[in-house]
């Protein structure tokens, strides 16, 4: 499969990693902001997207399935080559360079220089909603839905913290990689997805005019 040669800027093709998790909600949010969402379960599907969303779900399951189906290395290599990616909850864990307390054999894609703590806010009974101000998201606070959510333990110098809760970073950005510990896809508020889609469109523009080569910003 070759990727379409039409300019991606207008409506970038954004994949949603569809091994497990709340894939449908991310597809709907991306659709709502004018992107062209597609599901990604195979390396050839990954090769055809301009950017990738890693949904919420169970991070251990996602990591195992990614490894079992030969997706982990292709994912790492595309992220290394500058593909924009956004991860929510389990997706945040997948984009972390390091997990504080990984399960045996749990591997991440990596890309964001941070250490995350899984289930940091507690079990399901402690799952909660709260309003958050997220840098770069205009129009007032975002309703943060935290479900057995991780938080960010520590970040490297290149990582920008977009939002914190109780003193812990819960939304971060490094170059074209974005991660949130909460689930905007469950709220019907598409502002975070719009931000990401714009970032993907810009990155695709740069890639078109540069014709590949260096990866910007990282």
């Amino acid at each position, binding site marked *: 499969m070759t990727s379409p040669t039409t300019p991606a800027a207008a409506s970038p093709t954004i994949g949603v990693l569809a091994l497990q998790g709340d894939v449908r909600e991310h597809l709907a949010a991306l659709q709502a902001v004018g992107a062209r969402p597609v599901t990604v379960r195979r390396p050839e599907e990954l090769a055809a997207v301009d950017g990738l969303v890693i949904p919420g779900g169970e991070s251990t399951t996602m990591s195992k399935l990614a490894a079992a189906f030969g997706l982990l290395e292709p994912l790492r290599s595309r992220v290394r080559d500058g593909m924009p990616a956004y991860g929510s909850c389990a997706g945040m864990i997948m984009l972390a360079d390091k997990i504080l307390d990984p399960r045996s054999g749990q591997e991440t894609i990596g890309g964001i220089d941070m250490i995350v703590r899984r289930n940091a806010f507690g079990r399901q009974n402690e799952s909660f909603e709260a309003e958050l101000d997220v840098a770069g998201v205009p129009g007032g606070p975002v309703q943060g*839905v935290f479900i057995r959510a991780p938080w960010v333990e520590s970040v490297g110098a290149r990582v920008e913290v977009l939002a914190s809760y109780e003193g812990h970073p819960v939304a971060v950005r490094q170059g074209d990689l974005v991660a949130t510990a909460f689930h905007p896809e469950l709220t019907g508020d598409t502002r975070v997805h719009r931000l990401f889609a714009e970032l993907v469109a810009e990155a695709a523009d740069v890639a078109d005019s540069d014709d590949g080569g260096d990866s910007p910003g990282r």
Partner: protein
Amino acid sequence: MSSTPPSTSAATSGTAPETGTARVKRGMAEQLKGGVIMDVVTPDQAKIAEDAGAVAVMALERVPADIRKDGGVARMSDPDMIEGIIEAVSIPVMAKSRIGHFVEAQVLQALGVDYIDESEVLTPADEVNHSDKFAFTTPFVCGATNLGEALRRIAEGAAMIRSKGEAGTGNVVEAVRHMRQIRGEIARLRGYDRNELYAAAKELRAPYELVAEVAAAGKLPVVLFSAGGVATPADAALMRQLGAEGVFVGSGIFKSGDPAKRAAAIVKATTFYDDPKVIADASRALGEAMVGINCDDLPDSQRYASRGW
């Protein structure tokens, strides 16, 4: 309704956190979609399930096949056993309460399980009432054989529905029947106009608002899984092709010859449910499947799906 929020000593932005909201309860099930939830009776089995890629485990004292064999009253599991399983894995842990036994549910919430299954597999404690599930912070999953039953459970506060099937038989026929029934009734609602929806609500014995919501969305307002009789990778893929968003596997894994291998195979087939090649590969060399029971041979008293209403 909501419990004590987590400590807010150092909140840097926003309002006080709210726990136990519908979005948090239903949203938890959304995270499990595309996955397999496995019955386990020991911490070791829970670890095998987690290593195989299960999205959650159901902590039980006996799997349904053994409940059938042993007979007697089946109750909530021993708290020590549930705690042992919570300690052993990091994936969500579910546990079953008897239908209408809201004190068993209170105990499960106190133990910190992530989801409560008000389950027909256990002996019902109340033949009239199900538990009021809005009274809990912990979300509930309930079984259903048809759309009306599913909507009544949602009206009582269920945050996730599973088709009932016939647990502990290793026979997928009832799971198929119930999934087709629920999906078929939803499809029929899609064609109704407003006038007809009132009558439909009466027939379904479900609140009009929920019926109208389902008719508009073409799906339940909560996640729909399948349960009761899945024993092979192809069974799991079948249920997903029929519209299940994920599967519960009970006796099918740990009553088989090679549980670790079969568990991983069912996980793969559930993710790639529409790719026969992957399902074929996953189905190879799995050893003995659990011995099945022909559901036609079950006496009425042994049909768990008829429990609950």
